[in-house]
């Protein structure tokens, strides 16, 4: 039963992605990308990734849609109809897709407990978290404790993005405020 739900959700994902290609109105594209992120969050939930589903739903279906709409209000709504025939892009995409599909046949089957990714470090995290750290959520313990450096660097990246937005979009407002006070 779970596999049927999984396959149906994946089909919905592909359909939404194909619609995003075809739509000319940027408003429709932004709304469809919100739906796409939400379906992705449900797929993550079916795959037992509860933390990731939480984040993807909040970020993808919430923040990205608002961001897209705000950018849309500052630019235009229609996409120009392309005049060239998409032969070269389709060829590039087909060749890359074929190569990737050939590479996928080498990967271990989904859900196999003996896959290499489940050896080495992961069983150690699962076994040691109740004793060494004492909190039930293994993902939080790995994120903030075992892999704390990575999270520090990542907060640094978010900080840099915030500073970049301030520099790109904040400047003129301050000068207009000063002119208004004079």
């Amino acid at each position: 039963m779970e596999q049927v739900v999984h396959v149906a959700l994946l089909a919905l994902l592909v359909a939404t992605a194909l619609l995003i290609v075809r739509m000319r109105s940027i408003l429709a594209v932004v709304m469809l990308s919100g739906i796409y992120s939400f379906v992705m969050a449900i797929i993550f939930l079916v795959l037992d990734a509860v933390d990731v589903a939480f984040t993807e739903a909040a970020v993808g279906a919430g923040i990205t849609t608002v961001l897209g709409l705000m950018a849309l209000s500052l630019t235009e709504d229609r996409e120009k109809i392309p005049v060239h025939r998409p032969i070269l892009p389709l060829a590039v995409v087909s060749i890359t897709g074929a190569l990737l599909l050939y590479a996928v046949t080498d990967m271990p089957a989904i859900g196999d407990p003996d896959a290499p990714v489940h050896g080495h470090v992961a069983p150690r995290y699962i076994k040691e978290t109740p004793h060494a750290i004492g909190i039930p959520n293994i993902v939080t313990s790995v994120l903030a404790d075992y892999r704390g450096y990575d999270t520090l660097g990542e907060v640094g990246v978010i900080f840099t993005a915030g500073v970049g937005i301030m520099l790109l979009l904040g400047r003129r407002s301050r000068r207009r405020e000063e002119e208004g006070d004079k």
Partner: protein
Amino acid sequence: MEIFSRYAYWVVVLVMMIGFYIVIDRGNLVKKLIGLNIFQTAVFLLYISAGKIFGGTAPIIDDDAELYSNPLPHVLILTAIVVGVATLALGLALVVRIKEAYGTVEEDEIQAIENREENSA
């Protein structure tokens, strides 16, 4: 059936290629960024699908569960999602500034304006 044990990976490759096609074929900058976002989330799906174990449960320690799905890909993708939205915001801020400087967000029109300025300079 052997052939169906990797169906999620095929869908990942398909959606990745759809996102890639949007980036290289369409000229509108906002749509390119959204295509890049689609590519990115397909890669997330690849990692999370690899971490799933049939018969396992979410990696939160519970007395009834005996097998947990692998928490390591979850951690990596959690980071990647928030970084992805931060970079999308930065990209869209750049597009807004481009619109103010050139008056358009279509790639070929911007290229034409640049060529005209180069030829007249």
